[in-house]
């Protein structure tokens, strides 16, 4: 730990001297880093919990540097607050401190060294004993009281005040009341410095801030690292301002934090001390581990509720995982035959007998298919005729052309013909039904067709369909009988009439024979030469 670092001091002075309105340059950032490092190391003896021995600036960006500073300064500020409040409450102690402050250098230095060593040893025992608060609080209060006034003024610049403290500690000696923790000289110096340099320091701070703001302005000249640093610095400045506003309201910290947090319990649990000391020395420079140290000390003594919960959960998870890994119970397996399960185990298990009843009823949990209502009328599907077309290609195109020019009516497609036939059949059926019912009379459609008229007696026709069919369609009397032919029966005939009939018959027969004979002559003529017989 370098308390007097000439290079650092120089850097600090240079920073103070720079005009904030000047343009940025990389050297300024290097200066700033050196200055910060110097301040940090000056404050180091007062920061008891800090894991850093030195501010690490090489290769770190502004955010990381600031975090280190923050880690150091936060607890320091808190402790200072507390001390100041204590002193506020007990103004007598302030006077005590003042008397003590007139001692020599060496003692202070020695005491500081002792203090720093003691602090190192006890740094990890802070949170152990809450029970011994009352004894040690008094001492802590004294310290805090001294720092109170200064804290009010120098909230933003803990580093600077620390620096001034360290400088003047060397000059003065300690008083009789002082012990390893209480350095009255330090306190007095702190008070004085706070009064004198508060404003000056503030100016410095402002300059620094201004410098940072200016650095932000010209980005082109800076490297990327510097840009980041500058932007982060601005953020840091904002945070500083906030701290300044709320620094006085640190009551919460005060109540929670105790004397032991900073000065540790007196000779308690030596073994643990050693363990913790080793842990502390091995700890790396991360804030996380610093937090872990007090926590680990807590675990072994009193397990917090959170820890207990975690433990429970973990054990539960382990149990469940173990159970999953094992082979399942036979009831949980799918199909289990008799040999696979232990004997008579099915009797013990309460099987779901409701199944059988449901199967019998047919009461299954099947998903019912939701019926879709026909939204549109089904389109007419054109049937593909798979037979060889009877028309030639030319005819097809002919018809198409004719259709286009409307010369001829469109030829009926196969479907149309079927439709026609179907409609005809239906009409016939309807007609017959209407005739039977006698109610709604529709006359038979007159279709010019050739049909055979049956000479059915009119009486029979009238009975079945009296209205629909009239006897006018029947054969007329002259169609039934003209008057030619034999009217009288043979028994009625006289002799002369009988002879006349026979004569007529003969005449007809002879006339018929005369026609037939030339045909016979022709037919018989051909085979004659074959026979060789003459007729």
């Amino acid at each position: 730990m370098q308390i007097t670092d000439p290079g650092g001091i120089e850097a600090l002075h240079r920073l103070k001297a720079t005009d904030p309105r000047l343009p940025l340059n990389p050297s300024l950032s290097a200066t700033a880093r050196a200055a910060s490092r110097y301040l940090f190391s000056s404050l180091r003896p007062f920061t008891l919990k800090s894991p850093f021995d030195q501010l690490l600036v090489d290769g770190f960006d502004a955010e990381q540097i600031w975090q280190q500073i923050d880690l150091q300064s936060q607890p320091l500020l808190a402790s200072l607050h507390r001390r100041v409040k204590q002193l506020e409450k007990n103004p007598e102690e302030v006077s005590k401190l003042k008397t003590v402050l007139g001692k020599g250098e060496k003692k202070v230095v020695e005491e500081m060294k002792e203090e720093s060593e003691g602090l190192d040893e006890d740094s990890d025992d802070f949170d152990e004993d809450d029970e011994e608060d009352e004894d040690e609080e008094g001492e802590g209060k004294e310290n805090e009281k001294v720092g109170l006034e200064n804290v009010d003024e120098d909230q933003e610049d803990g580093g600077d005040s620390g620096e001034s403290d360290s400088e003047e500690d060397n000059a003065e000696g300690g008083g009789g009341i002082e012990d390893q923790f209480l350095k009255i000289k330090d306190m007095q110096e702190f008070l004085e410095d706070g009064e004198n340099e508060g404003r000056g320091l503030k100016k410095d701070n402002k300059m620094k801030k201004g410098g940072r703001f200016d650095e932000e302005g010209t980005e082109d000249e800076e490297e990327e690292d510097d840009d980041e640093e500058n932007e982060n610095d601005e953020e840091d400045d904002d945070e500083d301002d906030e701290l300044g506003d709320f620094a006085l309201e640190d009551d919460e910290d005060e109540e929670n934090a105790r004397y032991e947090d900073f000065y540790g319990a007196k000779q308690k649990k030596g073994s643990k001390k050693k363990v913790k000391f080793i842990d502390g020395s091995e700890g790396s420079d991360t804030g996380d581990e610093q937090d872990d140290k007090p926590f680990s000390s807590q675990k072994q003594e009193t397990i917090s509720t959170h820890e207990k919960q975690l433990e429970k959960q973990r054990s539960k998870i382990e149990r469940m995982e173990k159970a999953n890994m094992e082979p399942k119970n036979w009831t949980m397996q799918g199909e289990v035959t008799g040999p696979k399960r232990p004997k008579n185990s099915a009797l013990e298990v309460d099987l779901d007998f409701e199944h059988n009843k449901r199967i019998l009823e047919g009461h299954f949990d099947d998903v019912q298919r939701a019926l879709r209502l026909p939204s549109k009328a089904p389109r007419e599907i054109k049937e593909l005729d798979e037979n060889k077309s009877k028309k030639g290609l030319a005819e097809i195109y002919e018809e198409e052309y004719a259709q286009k020019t409307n010369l001829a009516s469109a030829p009926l497609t196969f479907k149309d013909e079927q439709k026609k036939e179907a409609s005809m059949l239906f009409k016939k059926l309807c007609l017959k039904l209407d005739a039977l019912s006698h109610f709604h009379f529709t006359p038979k459609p007159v279709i010019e067709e050739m049909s055979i008229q049956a000479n059915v007696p009119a009486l029979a026709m009238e009975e079945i369909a009296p209205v629909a069919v009239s006897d006018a369609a029947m054969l007329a009397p002259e169609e039934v009988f003209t008057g030619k032919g034999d009217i009288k029966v043979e028994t009625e005939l006289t002799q002369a009439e009988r002879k006349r009939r026979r004569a007529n018959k003969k005449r007809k027969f002879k006339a018929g024979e005369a026609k037939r004979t030339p045909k016979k002559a022709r037919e018989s003529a051909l085979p004659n030469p074959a026979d060789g017989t003459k007729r």
Partner: protein
Amino acid sequence: MRCHDGRVQFRKVTVPPHRYSPLKKAWMDIYTPIYEQMKIDVRMNLKARKVELKTRSDTPDISNLQKCADFVHAFMLGFDVIDAIALLRLDELYVESFEIKDVKTLRGEHLSRAIGRLSGKGGKTKFAIENATKTRIVIADTKIHILGSFNHIKIARDSLCSLILGSPAGKVYSKLRAVTARLSEMF
């Protein structure tokens, strides 16, 4: 009206051996429309196995000769006379020929199966395409000939190609239906 430049022009159409006897049977049906209506002289050169066509003095248009030649050629490809006659009567009918190997290289059994797919059972697939697209199709081993108007030939060709490439007949039918419905709607 004389021929174009007063000269007599010839066309000669070779008769493949498998069309020789059908030609003999249908000779009068071929001869009559060519000679009577188109006014083109036609004769069969038995030695060379060619049908020879010649313009006459009273041939109205030189294109008649070409039409007749196309008609005879269509018959030689395998089309029926009644279908081929359409070539004489309508101007905008064409014959397109392609081979199965133009579409997809198939060998042995695959080729046989493809041909079977094209025709269908009893030729029903082929007839279905013919009726739907108003074309006539001849499948001669690996050669396919389509007779019809330009658009219809295209549709028929697409259907046949998809059959060659392996799609089932049902799929081709559904596509055909859609296309022909659209075609018929246009008129």
